[in-house]
């Protein structure tokens, strides 16, 4: 029995990757959930909004790198992030003005808006590929690791190593800051409260003098910031490729729905639920069990519940179970 090594192995291959991935999903799901709560439709263009914001950030990162600007051990992309957010805000306000506003004034049904967002998705998709190309782009620089496997082994003398990538650390810290700021904004400020009022009951909100266009605009601005931050963190931690952002749409929606559409707290819980289950169900527990259990009980096989091929299937099984037993999601959002 060697619980310490078991825990280190578990952290290295399950906990740390899942926490980082969960944070990225949570930020993405927050954006989806805000749009659903306030604008009342499922925004399929969200994955590509993330890709657009990330692309602008990457372009600025390259510009700064060519000027020789850097943040030392921290990726230059963080310096470029505000510009990426501004670019993404401009794009979203523009699409709202030319596309969504028209349907809003018509009082179009949510299902029409969903299809409209699908169209917007394809346009953004093309736009990103047109500007930066369909290939992988690496833009992370600075120190790669906070703790690398080798230094961890030397420090602790343990057999197993533990790596924490700088990008994973930044992901978690940034996610905490962004989420805290968002909740403060929604619960404490006048504008945040008016957004929640508008989300709860549109007509009552109008009667009490809330300007709907302002609420809509602020929602888009917040969504742009959330999407860009989520996209940049994901790109830094993994890599940027327009197609993978399009694919991210699925786990993000799964997170938002599992947590309860329209509920910000649910989006965060959903993000972590999906991330942890994807990683844990497909993890081979042999090594951890080998350390944690007495020798006689240690498994001979891999102790793997499902092959990693089924990673995406896991999120959908969870989604189905949640929808069957709690149609409004874990945190009682709106039913889909």
């Amino acid at each position, binding site marked *: 029995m060697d619980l310490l090594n078991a825990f280190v192995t578990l952290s290295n291959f399950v906990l740390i990757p899942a926490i980082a991935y969960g944070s990225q999903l949570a930020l993405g799901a927050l954006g989806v959930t805000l749009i659903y709560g306030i604008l009342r439709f499922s925004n399929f263009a969200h994955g590509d909004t993330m890709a657009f914001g990330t692309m602008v950030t990457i372009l600025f990162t390259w510009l700064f790198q060519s000027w020789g600007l850097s943040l030392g051990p921290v990726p230059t992309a963080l310096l470029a992030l505000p510009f990426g957010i501004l670019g993404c805000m401009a794009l979203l306000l523009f699409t709202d003005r030319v596309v969504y506003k028209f349907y809003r004034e018509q009082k179009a049904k949510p299902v029409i808006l969903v299809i409209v967002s699908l169209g917007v998705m394809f346009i953004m998709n093309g736009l990103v590929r047109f500007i930066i190309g369909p290939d992988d782009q690496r833009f992370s620089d600075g120190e790669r690791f906070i703790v*690398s496997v080798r230094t961890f082994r030397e420090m602790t003398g343990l057999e197993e190593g533990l790596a924490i990538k700088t990008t994973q650390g930044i992901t978690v810290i940034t996610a905490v800051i962004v989420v805290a700021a968002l909740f403060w904004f929604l619960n404490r400020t006048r504008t945040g409260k008016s957004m929640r009022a508008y989300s709860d009951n549109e007509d009552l909100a109008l009667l009490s003098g809330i300007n709907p266009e302002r609420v809509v605009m602020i929602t888009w601005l917040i969504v742009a910031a959330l999407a860009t931050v989520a996209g940049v963190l*994901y790109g830094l931690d*993994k890599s940027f490729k327009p197609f993978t952002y399009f694919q991210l749409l699925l786990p993000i929606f799964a997170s938002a729905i599992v947590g309860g559409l329209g509920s910000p707290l649910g989006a965060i819980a959903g993000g972590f639920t999906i991330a942890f289950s994807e*990683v844990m169900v497909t993890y*081979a527990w042999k090594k951890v069990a080998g350390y944690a259990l007495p020798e006689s009980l240690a498994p001979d096989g891999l102790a793997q519940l499902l092959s990693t091929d089924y990673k995406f299937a896991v999120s959908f099984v969870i989604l189905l179970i949640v929808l069957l037993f709690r149609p409004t999601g874990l945190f009682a959002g709106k039913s889909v």
Partner: protein
Amino acid sequence: MKKFLMATAATALMSGAAFADAHAKEVKIGVILGFTGPLESITPAMGAGAELAMNEVSESGALLDGAKVTSIRGDSTCIDAGAATSAAERLITSDQVSAIMGADCSGVTGAILQNAARPNGVVMISPSATSPGLSTAEDDGLFFRTAPSDARQGVIMTEILQDRGVNEVALTYTNNDYGKGLADAFQAAFEEAGGTVTISTSHEDGKADYSAEVGALASAGGEVLVVAGYVDQGGSGIIRSALDTGAFDTFYVPDGMVGEKLNENFGAEMNGSFGAYPGTDSEGAALFVEMAKGAGFDGTGAFAPESYDAAALIMLAMQAAGSMDSADYKDHVMNVANAPGEKIYPGELAKALELIKNGEEVDYEGASAVELIGPGESAGNYQEIEFADGVYSTIKYR
């Protein structure tokens, strides 16, 4: 005005006749490779290799009494069987190619063979499709490859690993015909030789994150991680993730993984890793590298020599049959490739064509020491590579 009209009409007639003449002596060969997709970094050199052989023959004017050979490129995409089939169909039906040099990846090669080449009766020689499944595919005698089957590569991998005293490996493969075929062939050979494969798991290409796959591989353990994937795709992602988490620090890279990209992506982190890809130290290989340098591309690239050989075999077989019709020359491919006869190396295609014309036998060696066995596939020569100081280099031939 009248004169002018007459003159233009006459010119048009003459040029029409000239075109018709040229057309009769033009041999079109389709070059179908994955110019986009997971092999896009090695296909330019492959295409250039095949076209080098075609130019050589065109310039000699010795093929079928002075025929010009033109290359028509098509994109196999490497992964999309539908796109590859329609590219092949277009080359065969609208461009009227007499042969196909390609395709590159095993899955699309099988698809083109069954859906386009066989129905239209066109010969296909692939420089790089290595799936063991293609050895037994129905081909009406139309399909050949200058690359060896992965059944052979499985044996080579086993030898290399065991020579280094490695008896326990983890194995991951890209989830397609090539990856699965190679992984199965390797596992069978390795276990027969007494080794243990702790886990054999697939990975999907084009994902951003492979931490779940690497987690499973790490848990199973092993001295070396064998990555049967693509260098431009998931294969590099797996290695990146394995290095970052410290799951493995030594890798074995088979043919699809060997490329300049590895040096670029990983540099010194790969030191101590090793692998092998098709290639030989025959004099033909060196000659080909020189010729490639002259033509402005890298002749050491994976499968570039095989591409040259595939194109050369097509043209030599045409000469032997005295026809550019697939049905006629398909039976001559094995003859020109194998003994007996005078050995032919790269740059000697004109000589070979003359010899064949005079009724003599040739034994095409080419750039990759071609020797076709069984159902028309290369017997297989491999070069073993090792990473040191952040770049890989060939250390041995097998």
